[in-house]
């Protein structure tokens, strides 16, 4: 129905605005009420601040790297400093930003609200996982202030057991962060398993929850392997035990197997929640039922499981046996199918929808574009023969930045803009938001498209200096990075400005049908005034645009009591015919 028509008769549900004292931000005051809070929403907000600061630090390091590479002999950095800068850029981005960004920051805020629960299953564990994150981050900062770290974020042996930089501090940091990640995953698994309200069946769960669930499985199963590996590394460094270092009869490739057994699934810790966010955004801003709900849900689980079987593709040139290499190559291709399915499903969701090009939608479209490139260039690397040439070149750098930055970061930003009104009760400037999405998109492509060409022409990664024939493409890439940084700055300004001068947000600014849009913005302390009514999370039939008040409201047709002869018609949440 178009704007201006009258709303159909029925029961209008619109939670309206929260009163001054009934939202989670204002119900208690003071620093201590935040430090000791057990409220998942406040913990989510604290994580959001933490990961954003980490991202800022990692991003500034990235810009420094790019500026160095415009004129590598101009010596912005010495070789040794360059190595430390790229190591910290990678380690901070992976361990402190990408892995916790969506699950810990957005996930903590959203999982209980979308589920219709009051909190996570273990609120104290949740708070402790945040403080573990802080401790882990402190260790990284100590490593930075100490003698630096120059191993690359992968800590490959035997380099990491012999270098005289702060390997032990950094690996201990990663070890502690691992616990934080495990606790978050454990909490979500238990929450989703046990705290679904009546009527919330598995297949009525929003896809973001499916994605979070799949992610949590990986976090709980894979992270301990990383922890043990890092402890072995520390043991070898301090006690000269022969595990990885051939000098003590160890085998360095063993380390790579252990490390990637965690770190390849970790790639899916980074990207699966992003898939969840995009599924929500595309459906809500197209006002259309998500296409192929079950395929998307199952493909999340499939990716989580298959992701455990493909780690060997990081070692195609390390000297594994030919049979092992071929098996890993075959397995690697299987994981690309569920990812492709999701892209097609999102497109089909947009087909014949009612699309609003809001800021989150712009980010989601940008995500599909960038993730498609990231996914498709993975084919060159999964194929054995081409990988021999492209391995450890800038082609790989471009590929994984398309997946992690073009994928995870862009989805994170899209999700942040999508749920920002819910989290803080304020609307942001739409034009500013869209400009940031456009700048991020253009800057990102200008940064990383040239790197595909650099890689296929043979430019190895992690080089502080390079042969003159690569200079032009490097300069292009640096200009792109600057533009990308500017776009992110615009996004930050738009969001921060909204906190001070933004319009007050209504409960359901986009017309979403998932449960979080049923409570006020920002949500009350216990999320819902009364147990929410659970239906299909992507059913937009009842959601109408109220042109007079300029907001989306839910209009339920007046239900007559179901006749006793046809009990099936009773809504699932009504608890039977009585």
């Amino acid at each position, binding site marked *: 129905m178009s704007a201006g028509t009258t709303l159909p008769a029925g029961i209008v549900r619109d939670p309206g605005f929260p009163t001054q004292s009934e939202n989670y931000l204002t119900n208690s005051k003071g620093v201590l009420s935040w430090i000791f809070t057990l409220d998942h929403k406040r913990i989510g907000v604290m994580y959001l601040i933490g990961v954003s600061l980490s991202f800022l630090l990692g991003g500034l390091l990235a810009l420094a790297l790019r500026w160095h590479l415009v004129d590598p002999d101009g010596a912005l950095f010495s070789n040794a400093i360059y190595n430390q800068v790229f190591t910290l850029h990678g380690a901070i981005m992976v361990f402190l930003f990408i892995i916790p960004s969506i699950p810990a920051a957005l996930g903590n805020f959203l999982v209980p609200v979308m589920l219709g629960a009051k909190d996570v299953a273990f609120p104290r564990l949740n708070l402790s996982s945040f403080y573990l994150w802080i401790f882990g981050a402190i260790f990284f900062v100590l490593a930075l202030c100490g003698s630096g770290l120059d191993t690359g974020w992968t800590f490959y042996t035997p380099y990491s057991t012999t270098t005289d930089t702060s390997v032990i501090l950094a690996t201990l940091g990663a070890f502690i962060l691992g616990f934080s990640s495990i606790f978050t995953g454990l909490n979500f698994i238990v929450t989703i398993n046990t705290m679904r309200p009546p009527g919330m069946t598995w297949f009525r769960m929003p896809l973001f929850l499916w994605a979070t669930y799949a992610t949590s499985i990986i976090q709980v199963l894979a992270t301990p392997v990383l922890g043990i590996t890092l402890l072995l590394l520390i043991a070898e460094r301090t006690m000269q035990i022969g595990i990885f270092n051939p000098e003590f009869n160890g085998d360095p490739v063993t380390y790579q197997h252990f490390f990637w057994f965690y770190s390849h699934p970790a790639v899916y810790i980074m990207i699966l929640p992003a898939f969840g966010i995009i599924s929500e955004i595309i459906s809500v801003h197209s*006002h259309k039922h998500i296409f192929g709900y079950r395929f998307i849900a199952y493909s999340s689980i499939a990716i989580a499981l298959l992701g455990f079987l493909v780690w060997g593709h990081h070692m195609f040139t390390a000297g594994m046996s030919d049979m092992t290499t071929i098996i890993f190559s075959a397995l690697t291709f299987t994981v690309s199918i569920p990812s492709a399915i999701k892209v097609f499903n999102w497109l089909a969701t947009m087909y014949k929808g009612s699309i609003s090009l809001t800021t989150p939608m712009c980010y989601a479209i940008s995500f599909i574009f960038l993730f498609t490139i990231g996914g498709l260039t993975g084919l060159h690397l999964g*194929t*054995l023969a081409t990988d021999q040439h492209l391995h450890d070149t800038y082609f790989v750098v471009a590929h994984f930045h398309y997946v992690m930055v073009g994928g995870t970061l862009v989805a994170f930003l899209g999700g942040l803009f999508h749920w920002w009104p819910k989290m803080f009760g304020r609307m942001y400037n739409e034009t500013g938001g869209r400009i940031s999405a456009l700048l991020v998109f253009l800057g990102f492509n200008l940064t990383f498209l040239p790197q595909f060409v650099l890689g296929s022409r043979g430019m190895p990664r992690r080089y502080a200096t390079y042969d003159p024939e690569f200079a032009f493409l490097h300069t292009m890439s640096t200009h792109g990075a600057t533009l990308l940084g500017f776009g992110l700055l615009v996004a930050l300004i738009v969001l921060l400005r909204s906190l001070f001068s933004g319009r007050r947000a209504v409960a359901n600014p986009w017309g979403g049908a998932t449960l979080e849009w049923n409570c006020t913005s920002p949500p009350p302390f216990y999320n819902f005034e009364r147990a929410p009514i659970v239906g299909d999370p992507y059913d937009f039939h009842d959601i109408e645009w109220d042109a007079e008040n300029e907001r989306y409201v839910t209009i339920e047709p007046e239900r007559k009591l179901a006749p006793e002869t046809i009990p099936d018609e009773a809504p699932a949440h009504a608890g039977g015919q009585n």
Partner: protein
Amino acid sequence: MLPAAFSLLADYTEDYAWFPDSASTFSEGVDSLYYWITGIAFFFFVIVIVALFFFALKYRKAKGEKATSQVSHNTPLELAWSVIPSIFLVGMFIFGAKVYLDMRTIPDGSYEVGVQAFKWGWTMDYGKGTYHPELHLLVNEPTKLTMRSSDVIHSLYVPAFRAKKDVVPGRYNYMWFEPTLVTPKVSDEELAEATKEVEESGGTWDYDKYQFTPDGYKFYDLYCAEYCGENHSEMQTVVVVHETREDLEAWVKKYSSRGDNVSLEAYGEQLYERRGCSSCHSIDGSQRVGPSYQDAFGSTRAFASGPSAMIDENYLRESILYPKEKVVAGYAPVMPSYKGQLSDDDIDSLIAYIKSLSSAGQ
């Protein structure tokens, strides 16, 4: 075609874009596979992107308008778009594995070169005591490299050959390739001019500047592709492909052990360049990873472990063979041992050379 379209962006001085020269029997297979995958990827990319932007614009509606369809699934369609891409993936896997197996099957009777990788340089072993950092090969002759590392993991990468293999300490790794293009020789005048220039400035040979070797051969780049510490990006050498076996053998002979009329000192200087000493030790007093040779001989140094001592012949010999025993204070113990790699005559030559760089030694 795509490569042509990108060549402007990539490098206006070269007529190629996606790849460096195609110079081995692997290049064609890898390149065509690459183009084939890129073609398929591009095809699916165009479908996705056209649909994405077309839908985003076509179905853009005013606020409050309902979507014209709420279809939530269509199993045949979903099966189709799962199965059809899978068929392409199987194709990529099979062809990729096939070309890969060719790259892994080393032909019998290959020309063999030993490779020693260390922080941060390469030593190629041509047998009979001939070592040199440059890799010299014969055209159309399969070559097998037997590779080992003295310290951390390195990776030998020749982009023009599309070949790469990690060099892992504690084990031998093997790779092979067959070069198909001869690297031409520059004219004698050009070589003489460059040689004169280098001699006059007293510097070392700059491969990037001249784009040919001190013997006048043009070359392909050889990189270390696995991160190995401070000078990872300087760990480069060159590959020269000779046209005839005689030419290759003449080159190898030129660099075999010290000739009758070559002084210890002069040969020591050659070894300094060839065996990678120059990547860590300067001869002009400048700071590198290891101490400079300038005025080293006869000076007294403090050691990280134990008392200080004077640098003499015995100390130099011990440091070449057991470099971690007495490390000069302020330097990391990163030098690999040359035990078993240098003959007594080689070590004497190096010591003579180091002595010549010090006023105390003359």
